[in-house]
C-alpha cells in the first residue's frame, strides 16, 4: 500500500518534472521565435550552416588550389625543358612554344576558377573560412546567392538543398517578425514626430485631441466620475456628431488606435527610406572596399533585391591584395563579412517593413477603389501582387 502510494507520488513528481521540462522547452522555443530570439535563431542557424559547409567543402577547395599550383609547376618545368633543349634558339619558335604553354595553363586556370578557385595563395582555404562560409549560408537562406562561393562536392550540393529548404522559411519568419516590429515602431515614430510637428494646422488639432485623451486616462485613474463629466463636456462640444454614449466610445476608440494602427505612412516615405538605405550602404561600402560610390550602390541594390549577381562581393579588396599578413587578413576579412551580413539582414528587414507599410495603405486604397468604381479586377490584381510579394519577400 505504502509502496504503491510512494510509487504514485514518485510518478506524480516525474510527471510534474516532465511537465516542467516541457514548459521550459516551450518557453525556450517561444523565446526563440519571438522578436529577439528569431535574430539569434537565424544567426545561430547561419553559423551552424557555416561550420557544416566549411567542413564539407574545405578539403575540396584546398585540392583545387594544389591542382593549380601543380599546373603552374608543370608549365614552368616544361618551359625550362624547352629552353634547355632548344638547339637553334629562334625567337619565333620560342614564342610559339610559350604561347602554347600559356594557353594550356590558361585553360587549366579557367577550369579551376569555375571550380571555385579564387587566386589566393594562402595556405588555408580563404573562401571557406568561417566568415566566408557564414556569408555563403546567409546568401543561401536569403536567396541572394552571390555565387562567388559555391559548393562543388556532391555532399555539399545535397546539403545546400536541404539547408535552403529549412533556412528560407526561417528567414521569412525573421523578416515578417522584424518587419512587423519595425513597421510598428516606424509608424509610432512617424505619427508622433513627423505628423505632429511639421504641419501646424493638423498638429494643433491632433495635439488637442491627444491631450484630451491623456487627460481622460490620467484622471480616470484618480477620479472615477471625471470620465463621465468629461464625456458630457465632449458631448456638448460635438453635439452634431455624438448622439449617444456608444458612438462616443467608438470615437474614443478611434483616437486610441489612431497612433498605433490607423496611421498610413505615405508610399513616398517608404520609397525614400529604401533609397536612403541603399545610398547609405553605397557610402559605407565605398569606404570599406575599393569600389566607387556607384558600384557600391549597385552592389547594395543587387543584394537587397535578392538578385545577387556576385560580380561585386564584400571582401574583394582583401582577396585582391594577397601580400597582406595572413593574420591581419583573417581578422579584417571576418570583420567586413560581419558588417556586410548585418547590413544585409537589417536591410532586408527594412524592406520588409516598407512592404508592410505600403501594403496597409494599398489595401485601404484598393478597397475604396473597389467600393467607388466596383472594379474588382484592379483590386484582385493588387491583392495577388501583394500576396505574392509577401510570399517572395517576407
Amino acid at each position, binding site marked *: 500500500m505504502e509502496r504503491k502510494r510512494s510509487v504514485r507520488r514518485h510518478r506524480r513528481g516525474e510527471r510534474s518534472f516532465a511537465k516542467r521540462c516541457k514548459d521550459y522547452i516551450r518557453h525556450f522555443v517561444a523565446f526563440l521565435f519571438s522578436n529577439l530570439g528569431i535574430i539569434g535563431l537565424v544567426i545561430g542557424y547561419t553559423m551552424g550552416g557555416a561550420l557544416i559547409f566549411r567542413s564539407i567543402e574545405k578539403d575540396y577547395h584546398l585540392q583545387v588550389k594544389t591542382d593549380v599550383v601543380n599546373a603552374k609547376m608543370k608549365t614552368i618545368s616544361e618551359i625550362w625543358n624547352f629552353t634547355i633543349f632548344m638547339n637553334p634558339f629562334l625567337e619565333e619558335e620560342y614564342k610559339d612554344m610559350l604561347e602554347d604553354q600559356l594557353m594550356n595553363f590558361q585553360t587549366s586556370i579557367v577550369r579551376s576558377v569555375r571550380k571555385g*578557385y579564387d587566386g589566393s595563395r594562402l595556405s588555408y582555404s580563404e573562401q571557406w573560412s568561417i566568415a566566408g562560409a557564414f556569408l555563403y549560408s546567409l546568401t543561401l537562406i536569403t536567396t541572394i546567392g552571390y555565387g562567388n562561393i559555391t559548393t562543388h562536392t556532391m555532399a555539399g550540393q545535397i546539403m545546400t538543398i536541404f539547408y535552403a529548404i529549412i533556412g528560407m522559411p526561417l528567414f521569412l519568419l525573421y523578416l515578417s517578425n522584424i518587419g512587423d516590429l519595425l513597421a510598428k515602431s516606424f509608424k509610432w515614430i512617424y505619427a508622433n514626430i513627423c505628423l505632429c510637428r511639421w504641419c501646424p494646422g493638423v498638429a494643433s488639432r491632433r495635439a488637442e485631441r491627444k491631450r484630451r485623451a491623456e487627460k481622460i486616462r490620467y484622471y480616470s485613474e484618480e477620479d472615477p466620475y471625471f470620465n463621465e463629466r468629461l464625456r458630457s463636456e465632449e458631448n456638448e462640444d460635438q453635439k452634431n456628431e455624438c448622439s449617444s454614449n456608444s458612438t462616443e*466610445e467608438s470615437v474614443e476608440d478611434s483616437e486610441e488606435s489612431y497612433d498605433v494602427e*490607423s496611421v498610413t505612412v505615405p508610399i513616398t516615405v517608404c520609397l525614400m527610406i529604401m533609397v536612403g538605405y541603399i545610398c547609405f550602404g553605397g557610402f559605407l561600402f565605398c569606404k570599406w572596399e575599393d569600389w566607387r560610390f556607384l558600384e557600391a550602390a*549597385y552592389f547594395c541594390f543587387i543584394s537587397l*533585391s*535578392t538578385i545577387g549577381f556576385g560580380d561585386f562581393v564584400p571582401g574583394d579588396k582583401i582577396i585582391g591584395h594577397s601580400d597582406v599578413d595572413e593574420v591581419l587578413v583573417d581578422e579584417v576579412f571576418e570583420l567586413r563579412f560581419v558588417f556586410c551580413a548585418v547590413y544585409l539582414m537589417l536591410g532586408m528587414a527594412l524592406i520588409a517593413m516598407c512592404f508592410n507599410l505600403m501594403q496597409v495603405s494599398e489595401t485601404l486604397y484598393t478597397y475604396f477603389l473597389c467600393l467607388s468604381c466596383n472594379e*474588382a479586377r484592379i483590386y484582385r490584381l493588387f491583392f495577388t501582387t501583394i500576396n505574392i510579394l509577401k510570399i517572395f519577400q517576407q
Partner: protein
Amino acid sequence: MSRYQSRLEIGELNPPSRCLRCWRFTWKTITCIFSHIALITSVVAYCAAGAFTFEALEVENEKEIKRSIKGIRQNISNHLWRLVVESDVLDEKNFTQNASYLIQNFEGALIKAMTKEGWDGEEDENIVQWTRTGSLFYSIVVITTIGYGHLTPKTALGKVVTIFYAILGIPLMLICLSNIGDIMATSFRFLYWRVCCYVCTKPKKPRRSRSGRSSARSSERLSRSRNASFRRSVRTSTKSADSGFGYLTSHSDTDLRYHDYGNRRSLSRNRISQTSRYSDSFVKRGQSVPRTSGKTSSLDRKKFSNRHAAKDSENFELQAFDKTPILCNKYVIKEGELNGHSIPGITLREFERHLQLLSPENLDVTHDDIHQHKGDTRRKKSPARMNPSPKMMTPLGYGYKSKYLDDPDSDEEFYYDDVYYDVVKQRTRPVPIGLCVFLVMSYIVAGAFLFDYWEQWGVLNAAYFCFITLTTIGFGDLVPAKGVSQTTNETTTTVTVSIALCSLYLLFGISLLAMSFNLVQEEVITNVKSIAKHLELLRVMMKKNQIMNSHNI
C-alpha cells in the same frame, strides 16, 4: 467587367436567360484571355527591350576584354623571352623563380578578368556572351531576381540601367507570374476536383462518401452554430491551447479574408442559377442567419453588443451589417467606426448583397444534404463537393475546425457566424499539399534529367541547378550554354536553343511554384501558425488583448 455584371445581376435577382449567360461567359473568357495576354505581352516586350538595350550597352566592352586577354598573354611571353635572352647563364633555380613570378602575374590577371571583368574563358571574339539571346536571358534573370551572375554589366551606364530596369521589371514580372499562377491554380484545381477525383472516386466512391459525411457535418454545425459559437468564444477568451488552432496574424488574416472575399465575388457568378432558384425562400432564411449571429455575439462580446444595443436595438440590419462579412477586414471596421457609418448607402447595399450571398449557400448545404441522401445526379453533387471545409481535406489530418473561428481577432471581430465561415471556406476547394509538393518535386526531377540530357552535367548537378534556379537563389556556378561552347566548338544556334529552353523551363517553373503557393498557402500558413500558436510563440494575441484592455479603460 464581368464580375461587375455578375454582381449587378445578383442584385437584380432576375434569372438570366441562357443566351445572355452564354454571351456573358464568352465575354468573360475573352476579357480574361485578353487581359492576361496583354500582361504577358508587356512582359515579353519588356524583356525584348531589355535584350536590345543591354546588348547595345555591353557587347563592345566584352569584346574589348576578350582582346585584352590576348595582349596579356603576349606581354607575358615577351617577358619570358626577354628573361631568357637577357640572362647570361641559364640557371634552373633562378629561371624557375622568375618564371613562376611572371606566371603568377599571368594567373592573377586571368582571375581578375574572369571574376571582375566578366570574361567567360573564351577568346574568340565572334563568340560573345552579350548576344541578343544572351541579353534576353540576362533580362529574364534580372527581373525574376534569380541573378546567376554569369553575365553582369560592366559599364557604368549598364549598371544604372540595370537598377532602373529591375525596379520596373520585378513588380511587372511578379504580377505576371502571380497571374499565371492564378490561372494555373484555378485550372489545376478544376482538373483535380472535376477530372481526377471524379475518375478516381467513381468506382469506389470514397470521396463521395467523405464529402457526404462532411456536408452532414457542416449541416450539423449549422444547427449547432449558436451554441458552438458561444462556446468557442469562451474558449478564445480563456486562451486555452486548443483555441490556438487556425491562428493567424492580423495582416495575413486580413489578406486571406480579402482573398475569400474576392473569390466569393468571382465565384458568385456560378451561383446565379441557384440564387434564382432559391430566390423566393432565401430572404427569410438570410434574415434569420445574421440575427442569430447577432444574438450569439451579443452574448459573447459585451462591448459590441452594448454599443449596438444602445444605438439601435431594434434595427437589426445595421447590427447584422457589423456581423456580415463586409467587416472581414479590420481596416474596414476602423473606417466604419471613424466615419460613424457615414456611408449608409454602401453599407446597406453591401449588407443586402451579403445576405444574398449567404443564403443560397445555406440552402445549398441543406439541399445537397437531402439530395445526397437520395443519391442523385451529378449536377447536384458539384456544390456538395465544395462543402468540405479545407481542414477536412488536408492530408495532415487536422480536424475540421474552421480556421477563423478561434481567431484572436475575434476579440474585436467575433461576429461572423459559423455559417459564414462555412460558406466562405467552401468556396476554395483546396488541393492537398502533398500533391503540390509532389508536383514541384517531379518538376525538379524532370528538369534534372532534361538538363542532364541537354548539357551533360550529371543528374545531381542538374537537380542542384534546378533547385537553385527555382528558389531564385541563382549562384551561377552552373549556367546553361556555358559548358557547351567551351568543350565543343558549337555553333551559336545550339547556344540559342539551350538558352531558350532554359528560360522557358525557369519561367514555367516559377509560375508553377507560384501556382502551388497559391494552392497551398492558406493551408501552410494556417498549419505553421497553428503550430506556432500551440507553442504560444506568437505574441500578437497578447498585444491584441492589451489593445483591447486599453480600449476598455
